[in-house]
Each structure stands twice: as structure tokens, then as C-alpha cells.
């Protein structure tokens, strides 16, 4: 079909073409200046959804990192408290050997018993360690110290139960150790406090045989439970370190993917922009020539 091109059509078409090129230029310009390929969901619905997932992941990773840092602070506090408990138990052992020795007289044994009582109190003091205002050996009762500071306070107030931190998507890890199973309630359970109180009694009563045999064995057994608790804590620290490493990798990967999804490829965008500019200038030039010329210019 041969088209009869009229004057109105010409100017309309020139304007429509200019408008189209202009629109593309504005879009490129926005992308370049914002650095984002996706301004609104309709620019790329699938990409938007993907970017939202990645952004969410990234936000989660940052929170998990904070959680892991918090868990590590907690475990460091527990480790240092348990280290000092170990020292105290070691010291107790030395004193038991010293006191069970026949060469020590009763007054010396009384002095030793006195020191053992002090050590028992310090064990409880270490067990009352706190991190960020939370008693770390209180089980889920983190708002009250597990032990009182008199022999009457030997009964553990701890409420056994897990205190956990989320360290990954759907992954949480318990961070507290049950120290009640190590220190006990001071009587009737053969745990460390009970053993220490017994030792003090045996020293005062001069029961050297009990000191030399059962007390030492019970002390060693109690010490073993403390070491087990430390080992558990240490293993968890390793797990937290590993989690931190994994989170760092996840963060890096998420950032890279997010950037690939929603950031604009500047080089590509600039090249596109330049060619659009060239097209715009060409359209302007051609349009100006077409719209201006008319048969009237040539008729006399």
C-alpha cells in the first residue's frame, strides 16, 4: 500500500520518535545515576523477588553474626570462670595431700580446713559469674545468682535448661553448661561442693584415712566433671568459630549475588547511553530537516 504522507503525520511521527528516544535516555540516566538496574518491581519482577530474598538473607546473616559474637562473649566468660574453678580444685587437692600427711598437727589441719572453706566459697563465687547482667551458670534462671555466699547458700538455685543462640538459618546452639551437675548442692550428692565440705570436716576431725583415700578419689571424680564441662564449652567455641567463618562466606556470596541482581553494569549502561544520545541527535537533525522543508520553498 502506497502511503500518502501528510504534513501532520510528518510532525507527529518526528515527535513520537523523539519522545521514544528521550524516554530510553531518561531510563538509562536514572540507572546510571542511581547505580541500580531495578528501580521498581515492574522493571524486573523476578529480579526484584530475588533481590528481596538476597537482602533478607544478608540481613539475617548480619543478625546471626551479632548472635554469634554474643554467644562467644558468653562462652569466654564461662571459660574464664571455669579456669579459675579448676585452679581452686587443684589447690584443694594440694591442701588435701598436705593435710592428710601425718606430719601436720591439728592446728595446721584446722588452718587448711579454713582455707578449703574459703575455696568452696570462691567456687560458688566463680559459679555466680555473669555476662551482660545474665548469670551464665544459672540455667534459664539468669536473673539470680545460683549460689549464696554462706555455707547455707550451697544449695544451687540454678534452673537447668538450655540457653541457646541462633547462629544460622534455622540453626540454634545451646551456650550454657549445667554447673549444678559439677558443683552440686553441698551435701548428699558427691559433687564438688559436697566433697569440699566433707574434706573440711575430715580435716577438722583428723580423719586422715578418709582424706587419703575416698576424699581424694571423690575430688578427682568431681574435677573430671568440671573438665568435661570445660571440654563441652571449648567444643562449642569451635563450633561458633566455624559458624562465624561460614557466615562471612555467606555474607560475601549474598552481597555479590545482590549486586549482580540489582546493580547496573555501569560500562554497559554508559555504552547504551552514548548510542541513545547519538540516536537522539540523529533524530533531531533528521526531524529538523524534514519538518522545515516544503514545496513552498521552491515555488516562485
Amino acid at each position, binding site marked *: 500500500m502506497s*502511503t*500518502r*504522507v*501528510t*504534513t*501532520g*503525520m510528518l510532525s*507527529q*511521527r518526528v515527535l*513520537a520518535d523523539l519522545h521514544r528516544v528521550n524516554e530510553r535516555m531518561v531510563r538509562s540516566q536514572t540507572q546510571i545515576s542511581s547505580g541500580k538496574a*531495578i528501580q*521498581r*518491581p*515492574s*522493571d*524486573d*519482577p*523476578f529480579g*526484584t*523477588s530475588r*533481590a*528481596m*530474598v538476597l*537482602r*533478607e*538473607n544478608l*540481613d*539475617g546473616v548480619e*543478625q546471626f553474626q*551479632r*548472635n554469634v559474637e*554474643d554467644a562467644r562473649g558468653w562462652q569466654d566468660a564461662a571459660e574464664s570462670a571455669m579456669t579459675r574453678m579448676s585452679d581452686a580444685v587443684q589447690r584443694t587437692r594440694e591442701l588435701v595431700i598436705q593435710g592428710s600427711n601425718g606430719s601436720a598437727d591439728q592446728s595446721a589441719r584446722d588452718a587448711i580446713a579454713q582455707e578449703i572453706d574459703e575455696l568452696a566459697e570462691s567456687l560458688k563465687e566463680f559459679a555466680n559469674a555473669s555476662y*551482660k*547482667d*545474665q*548469670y551464665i551458670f*544459672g*540455667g*534459664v*534462671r*539468669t*536473673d*539470680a545468682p545460683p549460689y549464696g555466699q554462706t555455707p547455707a547458700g550451697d544449695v544451687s538455685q540454678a*534452673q537447668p*535448661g*538450655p*540457653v*541457646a*543462640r*541462633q547462629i544460622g*538459618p*534455622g540453626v*540454634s546452639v545451646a551456650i*550454657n553448661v549445667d554447673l549444678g551437675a559439677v558443683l552440686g548442692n553441698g551435701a548428699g550428692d558427691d559433687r564438688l561442693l559436697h566433697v569440699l565440705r566433707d574434706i573440711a570436716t575430715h580435716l577438722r576431725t583428723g580423719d586422715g584415712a578418709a582424706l587419703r583415700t575416698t576424699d581424694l578419689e571423690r575430688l578427682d571424680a568431681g574435677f573430671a566433671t568440671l573438665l568435661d564441662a570445660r571440654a563441652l564449652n571449648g567444643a562449642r567455641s569451635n563450633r561458633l568459630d566455624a559458624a562465624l567463618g561460614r557466615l562471612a562466606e555467606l555474607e560475601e556470596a549474598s552481597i555479590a549475588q545482590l549486586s549482580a541482581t*540489582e546493580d547496573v553494569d555501569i560500562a554497559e549502561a554508559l555504552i547504551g547511553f552514548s548510542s541513545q544520545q547519538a540516536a537522539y541527535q540523529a533524530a533531531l537533525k533528521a526531524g529538523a530537516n524534514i519538518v522545515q522543508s*516544503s*514545496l*513552498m520553498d521552491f*515555488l516562485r
Partner: protein
Amino acid sequence: MPISSFYGLQTSLRGLLAQQRALDVSGHNIANANTPGFSRQEALMTASPAYVVPAATATGAGAHLGTGVDVIQYRRVRDQFLDLQYRAQASRLGYESARSEQLDRVEVALAEPSENGIASQLAAFWDAWSDVANAPQDMAARTALVEQGNTVGESFKTVIGQLELVAAQASEEYTRLAGAGGEVDMIARELAALNTTISKFVSAGDSPNDLYDRRDLLVDQLSKLGRVSVTDSTDGMIEIAFGDAAEPIVSDGTVNWPQPLADPDGRLGALRDVFKPGGSVEQYREALDGVAGGLVEAVNTLHRSGGADFFAVTPGDEAASLRVAVTPQGVVAGASGFAGDNAIALEMAKLRGNAGIDGAYRSFVARVGTEVRQAHTQEANAQALSDAVDGRRQSISGVSLDEEMSNLIRFQRGYQASSRAMSTMDEMLDVLINRTGRVGL
């Protein structure tokens, strides 16, 4: 009977007059080159009825001697079929461009992707639960959680408010266009008035070209607002059906508007699809209610295992009514009630990225994005088709100034030649009248 000596003068006169009329038409076309809806006109010339030379004459008996030219009609150059096509496309373009406009506003209201959208607020809400899990007895963390819960509610409410605004404004525009005294009404009234005027001319045997143009332009405008169908009536009048209105809105000289519409197509159709029950805004609202409902359900179920509901909502209007129902003291971190028990807070934090909450919101955003994108594509398609039909119509009916310039020259020359023919006759008669029989004077 011989042929009159003055015969040729009359023939030339007809030529002069006809060329002059044609020049007038070109002048009219040029003057209206930029008038919207104008169709170019042309003077239709035809040879006037020939003079049959009688049998008794000396020469050329029975021959048909030309008598010159007559302008029999001023024709309006227009293709009615292209008008039909154009109006169908104009209705579609009216629909698609209005839809695209309205959905754009919904998309902007979502403010995604950004730091302020619902997605970011939800992420911050899960963060706040994690912080409570890390320090369950810390009142600052609990207060921050309650605040963040309310902020999530505010974000939902803001988006719902924007959606309602879009619907309200669409409804308002619809009423302004389709109501009594609105644009449809005005166009219908002018069309009825034009019908009456046109019928007077047509019954007198005239062809009111410029009134036809004006009427066609009005029908074009109407077709952008809704589907239009035109039926010819008597005396050049037309009957116009609009959208799915039961009665024709213009019938000869009478107007029947407003009438109820259900699916009018065109701009009105798109506006209606936004605010009508079950329309876009209501669907989006329901989707958001679903997301908010999923959030409330999941959080409250966990929270109830150790206390009261965390969120309070009005059923059926979840998104707009979402708010936190507990005080910071009332936030339940663990079911046992011990200060360090964070089991519930941990479970809450694990809801992050949940398919029924964050996932549902994400698919909602993607759905809006897809629909807006489709609307843009449809609009571009409709625009291209409408431009193409309009181009073809322009190609037939539009004024080409170059063409009119060459016509001017053509008819000017025709006029000059006719007057030259008349001068020649005049000189011939001069010889006959003033010089014949004056031998020797």
C-alpha cells in the same frame, strides 16, 4: 439551428468558476491543515451536459459539443472503515493507558525495593526477636521489639492507605467522567445537537462536511472513554451505543445519559476495574491481608504457648489493623517464665524468611511488578496499533501542504487558461462586431 456565436463565452465562464471553486477548497484545506479531526475536501468536477448539435446544421450534425465543466460536489475524503478500526483501538488504548497509570500508583505505594518497605520492616522485626533471644530480661530489647512490631503494622497500614487512596481517586475520576454533567454527558449533548443541525442540512440536500468532521471527532473522543458503536439513522443522523449501557446514549436529537455501566471498556473500564468490588485494589488488599494474617497467626501461635497474643488484628482487615497487643513486660521470650528462657524468642527469630510471611509478601510484590509490566507492554502495543490506524486515516484524510500547493498552481493555471480562452472569444467577436462590413471606411 446554428450554434450561437456566444457559446464559447459560456463554456469559458464555467471553467473560470469551477477553477475558482477548486482554489477555494484548497484554501479551506490549507487553513484547516492543523485542525483536529478535519478531513481534506476536494471539488469534484465533471464535464457539464453536452450540447447535441441539431440535425439541420451545416456541420457536425448530431455531434455532442462540450459545454465546459461543473463542480457537482465538495467531497469529504474519508474512509468510514478506518474510523471503525480507530475507535476500537482508541477504546483499547484508553483502557490500557488508564490501567497502566493506576497500577503504577499502586506499585509506587509499595515502595519496594527500598529500606522503608514492608520487607525491610519485617526483617527488622525478626532482628528484634533475635535481640530479645540474646538478652531476654533486657527491657530495652523488649521495648525495641514492641516498637518494631508496631512499625511493621504502620508499614502495612501505610500501604493499605495508599491503595485506598488509589481506589478512591479512580472512583472519583470515574464519577466525574461518567456522571451527569461529566465528559460523556457533554459529548453526548453536543453530538445530539450536531445530529439535529446535520439533519436540517441533509434533508435540504446539502452535505455539511465540516459538521460531519466535528461529529466524528467527538465520537473519537468518546471512544477513548468507552466502547462505542455507531449506527446510521435517517437524514444523516446517527445513533450511538456506549459501553454496555442498555439504551443508546445518543439517538438522533435525544440524549439518554447517565445510565449504569458494568463493563464499559476504555478509560472508564480501566478505572472501574481498579475500584470495583473484586477489582485490582481489593485483590491487592486481600493479598496484603493474607500476608499480615500469616504473620499474626505464626507469631501469636508461638507467643500464646507462654502468654497472651502478641499481635491484635481485626479479622478480615488484618493489614490495616495490625498492632502489638502486649507491653514490653508482657513479651514472652520463653514458656517457663525464667528470665533466661529464650526458647520462644528463638522460634520467633527462626520465622525469618518464612514462606507464609516474607515469602508471601515477596510473591505479592512480584505479582504487582508482573501486572504493572504487563500493563506497560499492553499499553505500548495498543499505542502502536492506534498510531498505525491513525496514520492510515491521516494518510487518507489529512491535509498535505505540498499537495495543496501543487493544486493551487494547477487550478490557478486552469483559471488563467480559461480566462485566456474567454479573451480569445472576445477578440473573435471584436473582429465580427467592430470590423466586419466596414470596407472602405
